[in-house]
């Protein structure tokens, strides 16, 4: 009750501003992302992979966590971005930033095309449609080996140094700096999207898709738009992977990748933006550690963790942390 009266004191404007304000924990989190440069200089390659996966998970969060559109084929856009970035460099355009923009744009165009189909479906049909589109693209890339290298992976990816100054070496300093900067910039965009009137309408679609047309809302146009934005971001994540590792394999389009990013988002907490980032950190670090012990059983632990989180923390680990923090504020004066 105390919180309610506080909100009433602030009034509607104060309440909405408080919803969108930068919290201290957020600022602390982003500062902490710089720590690997100092504390774990030998893990920067892993850190850059985490940042890329986090960016991919944030892109899925926009459509799944906010607009309520379940996708089992989100890797399609990640893979498109990766192959586009790889091919652009292979054919002689190795400048990373322009390659990134081109690859993301291409993924966005594909995302818009897919969204025209996606908006017509919901629930199980939607899952099957997205799954089917992902599988189609994977097999298309497999059979077009003259272009993609097929199962052998794309050969001859050559990325020029970032700004002609920092090359993507084995240590991964440039890779992490590049991936982290892109994650942060994309996060700023995603944060703005969800705090905008458009983001509020997305949550409306998630909460009650039937009611939206009865409010005069063009739900399908909203969904097409957010799907396109998410595809651009997923494509950017894929392009970053291709550029920072100089390799593109069929795995970037695999069903496994689509499923993994869904698991990461659910573990971390969907619909809260930081959930995907937290999930990516936990998942990637755990995989790195566990697979050192016994790699073949690694998914056993992920399966167990997934069941535990869904059973006991319906809003993911971040939702559980939020609840714990609220409880702590109640018991300690």
């Amino acid at each position, binding site marked *: 009750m105390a919180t309610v009266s506080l909100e009433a004191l602030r009034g509607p404007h104060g309440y909405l501003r408080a919803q969108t304000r930068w919290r201290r924990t957020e600022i602390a989190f982003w500062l902490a992302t710089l720590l690997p440069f100092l504390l774990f200089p030998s893990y920067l390659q892993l850190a850059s992979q985490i940042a890329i996966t986090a960016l991919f998970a944030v892109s899925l969060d926009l459509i799944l966590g906010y607009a309520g559109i379940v996708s089992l084929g989100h890797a399609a856009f990640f893979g498109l971005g990766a192959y586009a970035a790889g091919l652009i460099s292979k054919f002689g355009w190795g400048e990373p930033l322009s390659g990134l923009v081109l690859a993301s744009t291409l993924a966005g165009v594909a995302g818009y095309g897919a969204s025209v189909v996606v908006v017509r479906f919901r629930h199980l049909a939607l899952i099957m449609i997205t799954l089917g589109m992902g599988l189609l693209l994977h097999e298309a890339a497999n059979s077009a080996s003259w272009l993609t290298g097929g199962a052998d992976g794309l050969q001859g990816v050559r990325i020029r140094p970032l700004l002609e100054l920092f090359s993507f070496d084995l240590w991964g300093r440039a890779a992490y700096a590049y991936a982290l900067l892109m994650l942060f910039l994309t996060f700023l965009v995603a944060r703005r999207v969800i705090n905008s*009137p458009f983001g509020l309408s997305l949550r409306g679609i998630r909460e009650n898709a039937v009611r939206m047309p009865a409010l005069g809302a063009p739900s399908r146009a909203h969904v097409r738009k957010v799907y396109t934005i998410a595809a651009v971001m997923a494509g950017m994540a894929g392009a970053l992977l291709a550029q920072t590792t100089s390799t593109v394999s069929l795995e970037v389009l695999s069903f496994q990748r689509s499923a993994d990013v869904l698991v990461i988002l659910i573990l971390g907490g969907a619909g809260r933006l930081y959930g995907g980032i937290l999930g990516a950190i936990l998942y990637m670090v755990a995989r790195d550690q566990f697979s050192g012990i016994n790699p073949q059983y690694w998914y056993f632990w992920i399966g167990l963790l997934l069941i535990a989180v869904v059973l006991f923390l319906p809003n993911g680990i971040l939702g559980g942390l939020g609840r714990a923090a609220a409880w702590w504020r109640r018991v300690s004066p």
Partner: protein
Amino acid sequence: MTTSGAGAAPVLSTRGLEKSFGSLVVAREISVAVPPGVRYALIGPNGAGKTTLVNLVTGMLRPDAGRIFLGEDDITSLPPSERVKRGLVRTFQINTLFPHLTALEAVTLAVCERRGHASTWWRGLPAYRDAVDEAYGILASLALGADCYQLTRALGYGQQRLLEIALALATRPKVLLLDEPAAGVPRGESPALFAAIAALSNDITVLFIEHDMDVVFRFASRIIVMVGGRVLVEGTPPEIAADARVREVYLGCTRHA
């Protein structure tokens, strides 16, 4: 007293609406004309086709035959969201709300959609002060001002029914169709809800479905009685009260057991 539509031009009218699901006819030859500013009650026994008529008029169902007019305009082929933009708005018999949005967020959403802000993704919501003020004003006018920071699912049932109306008002309706606005509300509380409806501006024409005859005769200025997918009779409350066919329907008859 004039008969319907004889005075002002009707704000909403239908001509020969027909709808059937297979062999089940749910609407036949429905022609009604709703003059502006009235408080119309739509009554009839269960299965009479009241909600079907609302669904047809708002575009949730497509008629098999017949036309629907909003003012002069034929809106028969418009999608539901387009009809809402033109001022034809409904509420639902069963709460159809946004459980994890606060009441303020939900109404702000509706206001932003109406004002055309909802496709803007590069500006924060707090920048739209007018929209937020309007949303808060609507909530306050329905006595929801103090509780508007709560999640919808945490609101009491009666408050949720009011929020249904608040969402509809946020779209600035010309014609408001209320499908059993007091459904599920304790009998003692429904007069307060209808008082809120009665207090709405006269610029809004209201058509409501209701089973409680006390409420109907207190708040309606005209009444339509439906039976078996047809309009049985239409008139003022005294005319309806005196109508032999209506009594037959409501006092148990053998014609459609």
